């Protein structure tokens, strides 16, 4: 009797497991493509904010250079991608990932779009956990602050100007939050320096490289 009920219950539970697994598998298979697509759209949306469609004509998501923790200056914890925006064969902008390790609450992941001439096309915070209402003004949805980097370069302002106003630089800090903007300014500067140091490989363009190599 006991053996019978144990058998019956285990078979029943196993059947439940099979049914629910089937259900989940089905849903997964049905939504898999759409989820992949949504992820790409979300990823591209951030890139398009920096380089709008009228400034480039390639698919930035497919035109990438992999950078990782070993890449000097970017402070990345894992492999990320530099996205290249081109118009025709010319590289317009390289969108460089950079991590600010010194945010108020942990890492701030940024992408910095650097134009061919060394000026900034735009900076966006991809993920951060800064205090709502204070440090989260780095988020473009919350405040325009991050747009103040647009058009800046290593010469505008000079190196000493790349700091928040409290540190005698040119960038505003937020009321009540200096640590966050300080971290973002420093990380953006590092991305610019990286772009300058690697200008050739970033802006040479895939199509152009072999041609110049042959000449």
């Amino acid at each position, binding site marked *: 009797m006991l053996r019978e009920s144990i058998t019956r219950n285990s078979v*029943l539970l196993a059947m*439940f497991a099979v049914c629910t697994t089937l259900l989940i598998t089905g849903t997964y298979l049905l*939504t898999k493509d759409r989820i992949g697509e*949504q992820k790409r759209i979300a990823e591209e949306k951030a890139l398009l904010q920096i380089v709008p469609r009228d400034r480039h004509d390639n698919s930035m998501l497919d035109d990438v250079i992999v950078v990782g923790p070993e890449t000097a200056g970017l402070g990345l914890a894992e492999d990320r991608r530099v996205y290249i925006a081109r118009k025709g064969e010319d590289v317009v902008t390289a969108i460089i990932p950079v991590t600010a390790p010194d945010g108020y609450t942990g890492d701030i992941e940024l992408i910095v779009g650097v134009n061919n001439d060394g000026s900034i096309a735009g900076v966006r915070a991809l993920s951060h956990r800064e205090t709502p*209402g204070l440090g989260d003004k780095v988020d473009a949805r919350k405040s325009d602050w991050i747009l103040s980097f647009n058009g800046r370069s290593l010469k505008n302002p000079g190196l000493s100007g790349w700091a928040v106003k409290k540190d005698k630089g040119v960038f505003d800090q937020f009321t009540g939050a200096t640590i966050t903007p300080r971290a973002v300014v420093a990380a953006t500067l590092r991305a610019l320096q990286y772009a300058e140091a690697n200008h050739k490989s970033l802006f040479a363009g895939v199509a152009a490289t072999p041609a110049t190599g042959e000449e």
Partner: protein
Amino acid sequence: MTDVSYRELSLNGLWKNNPAIVQLLGLCPLLAVTASVVNAIGLAAATAMVLVCSNISVSLIRNIVSDAIRLPAFVMIIASAVTCIELLMQAFTYELYEILGIFLPLITTNCVILGRADGFASRNRLAPAAYDGLIMGAGFGLVLILLGALRELLGTGALFANMDLLFGPGATDWKLTMIDDYPNFLLAILPPGAFIFTGLLIAGKNLVDAQIKRRQDALKARPVKGAKRVRVTGHIS
């Protein structure tokens, strides 16, 4: 429990036995995601969907499963319902999925759901079980949304920001700025604010209940008064 009054069920889910402010179940997501209305609606919808699905399935299998394997079977059903809904939200409302993050899978551990599955759905026919899931979900959702609205309004001075995450690009301009140049009231947005406002909601509900009770007592008292007088006269005679 063959005769189930739908009126009673509604009253229970929405007010008398509200999962969030009377049973105090599922407080973790309640406190964590109610910083804005859009988050609250997202989690409310997901929770209600899971509740309906799990209540329906549990009611369907209520005669098959024995007591011994009741709970594991229910948990399996709930977990799979949550996973499916998580996948669907990822596919159709990706940004909201990103915002709700960990709180979607955590719906599995929301005691409201197991509580209703075990306490109601496993003893009732399909239709009442489904309705109970819906109304309990609505009761939970109402509190979520109310709390979200309160905290968003007091915290940022605006309402319905970022509704496009849930309702598509057409909802971008739903945002109502109630107070211009509002200095953000941080406490309302941070977790401690969630506790305080939940407490206030509970207090408010108790206040209304007390009011109703007093009124009912007053109604009851009147005929008693009359009866007393009759008795008094009876005494005198």
